[in-house]
């Protein structure tokens, strides 16, 4: 059965998204899995990591014992300063976001739909929600990349025709990395760009509610070189 095959690791998924970052991009990484994107470093690209708490241009996690207690990223992790870093307050930080200066935001999601909608803030069976800065970022960043498991713990597909959960923003997702491959959101729907090793397009379609577009130049998933 297809579902027994080995799947991609989270770091590989985030590496793959990070390979798409372009030189000079301002990058915002959501809490959790997306923070792994900063572990992939391409020396030919200068990236500026922006955190919604107003840190513009932070570096890797601080080594143990060398933490600056006042310097944290959006996940509350102690990060390091890189030369050129600047701090602004929360309103100015989201001013930057709403102006559309963030080139890409990478987020986790419960669901992504083939029309580019995604959902990551509320499960209706639980009261309340956890938005943080996701709605502002999703509505305003130039691109939204999603990193998520392809299926729920119960094995249900997360890549859907339409989101069932309340969405975070409509029609904004451009690229999705799951543990089964890399998907581009096109006007026609999800295009499978790269498949996990050992997984055929048919295997992946089987675990996907939306109809996948399978291009002629379908590639195997690219790992860190």
């Amino acid at each position, binding site marked *: 059965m297809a579902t027994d095959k080995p799947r991609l690791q989270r770091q590989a998924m985030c590496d793959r998204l990070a390979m798409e970052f372009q030189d000079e991009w301002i990058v915002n990484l959501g*809490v*959790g899995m997306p923070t792994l994107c900063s572990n992939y470093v391409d020396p030919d690209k200068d990236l500026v990591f922006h*955190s*919604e*708490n*107003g*840190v513009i241009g932070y570096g890797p996690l601080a080594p143990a014992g060398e933490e*600056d*207690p*006042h*310097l*944290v*990223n*959006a*996940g*509350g*992790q102690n990060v390091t300063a890189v030369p050129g870093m600047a*701090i*602004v*307050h*929360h*309103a100015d*930080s*989201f*001013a930057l*976001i*709403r102006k559309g200066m963030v080139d890409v935001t990478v987020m986790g999601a419960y669901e992504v739909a083939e029309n580019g909608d995604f959902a990551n803030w*509320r*499960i209706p069976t*639980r*009261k*309340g*929600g*956890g*938005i*943080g*800065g*996701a*709605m*502002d*970022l999703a*509505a*305003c960043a130039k691109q939204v990349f999603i990193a998520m498991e392809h299926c729920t713990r119960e094995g249900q597909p997360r890549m859907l025709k339409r989101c069932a959960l*309340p*969405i*975070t*923003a*409509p*029609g904004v997702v451009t690229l999705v990395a799951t543990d089964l491959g890399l998907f581009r959101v096109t006007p026609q729907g999800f295009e499978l760009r790269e498949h996990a090793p050992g997984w055929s397009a048919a295997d992946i379609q089987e675990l996907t509610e939306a109809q996948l577009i399978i291009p002629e130049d379908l590639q195997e998933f690219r790992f860190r070189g």
Partner: protein
Amino acid sequence: MKNKIYQSFDAAMADVADGSVFMSPGFGGVGIPRNLLAALHRQGARDLTGVSNNTGTLDEKVDVGTLIAAGQVKKMYAAFTAPTHPSQVTPFVQMYNNDEIDAELVPQGTMAERIRAAASGIGAFYTPASVGTELAEGKEHREINGRTYVLEYPIHADYALVRAWRADTFGNLQFRMAARNFNPIMAMAARITVAEVEEEIVPAGELDPDKIHVPGVYVDRLVQIPPDGIWD
């Protein structure tokens, strides 16, 4: 010059009346006015409305969750009214599930801008955030230059409790690194602003006027965090 320096957090929080609206900054565990929150907890004012990025954490530290757990808060404005992980059942979550506390969930950037609107006499503003989502339902929409925006109103407050790194006796404040976060906009938005200060409060004139994050005219009360205060 009016003396803004208070000798204790308790003195600085003594006049908070039942029913007050308070703002409490902090993000990622830094820049949280833990000493003032602890004093407000001891003071015991009730029916408070809180404005804060989150609704308290599960660690043992004092934060808005301390006031919530004590039943002092009737409503929260926050960007998180559910935990990021379902296993995190904070006092807020328990009370919210039991309808013992009210909450308005606000996207973080919209919250920051609504606070900033209060700080700047703006009556309302149009933001693109939340358009097309459940949170924008029932709100006024407007298309401007081909883009759809939703109308949002200021969040005003009686008190801002803030945590500064340095201050002078006139009330000018400086913050350090990511501890800045919501502190300046809340300090400028509230009617009465109270700051706990990590470093020594220096005489007016010792801070470079070009390097001040909150002008002293916005700050009413200053308390130096003592060695036995809450530092982390």
